């Protein structure tokens, strides 16, 4: 099949979908022309990611990558979230097809953009 079971699970039942009204950090990456946009909302308390939500416009692996990335940083200290790599996302998803690897990069970038936003607001 196109995607691993893990990818399909996170694509069909994405975790942490939604918005956070009073987010402490918001990151948006990608653009509609390329076919992928990810937006990540963070609620941070004492440098711990208390809550995270996302919205994604994109293919199955983009949605799954966002879902997995949010799962991986949820409840973690910001310092750990900053270390999140696209490789870790790919591994956690049991792999992505080669031409879909950029989705995991986007997920990493979206998390970092949200953290940047958090720092810049602080």
């Amino acid at each position: 099949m196109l995607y691993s079971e893990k990818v399909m699970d996170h694509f069909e039942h994405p975790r942490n979908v939604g918005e956070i009204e009073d987010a402490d950090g918001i990151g948006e990456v990608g653009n509609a022309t390329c076919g992928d946009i990810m937006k990540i909302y963070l609620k941070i308390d004492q440098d711990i990611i208390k809550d995270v939500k996302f919205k994604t416009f994109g293919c199955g692996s983009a949605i799954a990558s966002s879902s997995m990335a949010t799962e991986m940083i949820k409840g973690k200290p910001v310092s750990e979230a900053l270390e999140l790599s696209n490789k870790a996302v790919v591994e956690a998803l049991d792999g992505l097809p080669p031409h879909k690897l950029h989705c995991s990069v986007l997920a990493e970038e979206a998390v970092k953009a949200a953290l940047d936003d958090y720092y810049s607001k602080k």
Partner: protein
Amino acid sequence: MKIYADNAATTKISENALAVMIENMKLYFANPSSLHTPGQLAKEQLEQAREEIAQAIGAKPREIFFTSGGSESDNQAICSAAYAGKRKGKNHIITTTVEHHAVLHTMAKLAKDGFEVTYLPVDEDGWLDPQLVREAIREETALVSVMYANNEVGTLLPVKEIGAICKEKKVPFHTDAVQAVGHVPVDVREIGCDYLALSGHKFHGPRGVGALYVRMGARIDNLIEGGAQERGKRAGTENIPAIVGMATALKEALNQLEENMEKTAALRDYLEAGLSKISHSKINGSGAERVPGTLNICFEAIEGESLLLLLDAKGIAASSGSACTSGSLDPSHVLLALGLPHEVAHGSLRLSVSEENTYEQMDYIIEQVKEVVSYLRSISPVWESLKKGEKEYIFK
């Protein structure tokens, strides 16, 4: 429910065609180039299929060359005409922006080899104004290649008018009729084309077989060199089981053509009516005549692959853009040619029904598409921006 709604990508083989193929493999397996009786009996099967295919499109048997499919037919026709032109100092080719890649990539190869290719634009329905062809033809034009029916949107292009212009201007005319044959009446004399490509698996025939019509007197050169099969123009031991399977399927399709056209068009229109109720969406090509079974729709703020996969999870097999390019990251070149902006071109869905589909299935598709679209919009940051008024809707 399991629904196959991807008949423009490929069709399920008909029971009759399959039965004929099996019989052929068992009884007529010899090489038709062999002089012995089994070989000559196989050859009779081959020539009968040639007559049937010829008759189906209004051609003479000698004008039919069997190939491995639509792509090969397109390649051979285009290269033959182009290089025949080049030998006479003609190095200009006219085609459209909405052709299949079998045509477009052949054009790109020819462009590398010194040909100048004019890509005529289509209107928002994918229709080509024949006058554009007339205006584009020059002294050095070696070939005009315009498809009969578009594979993504279903639009029927005015090939008869273009054929008449090409005849008047004495320019060879090729038409890729892969999506038309078996679905709408196709007659090579009416079109007035010099070359016409068709493919077995698009009308419930087998895979890996196609035909190329070459008007008597039009130039044809080998793409595949070797044995003297197909009057020396296409080498390789003839794939007779597939060829007779294709002929059987085509006869069957034509026997029921009017009936099937009516039925599939009605199903498609029903589906279209249901889906067009979804807000901020657009039916592509609905302003033009289309092949009966094809429906192409774009939904704002969602992306096609995720739509496709969620429908698949509900048992609905559909397509986003053409099958051959799925897996690529670019939105369909056809939808862009229709003038759709990238962001909505990404959100396209092609449903292609056959006479075997039912209204019950259409209801299910409508229901599921609605649900999936609204779910994907609910998780789409683009939809969020649109709703918040941060962005303007493209489809009002």
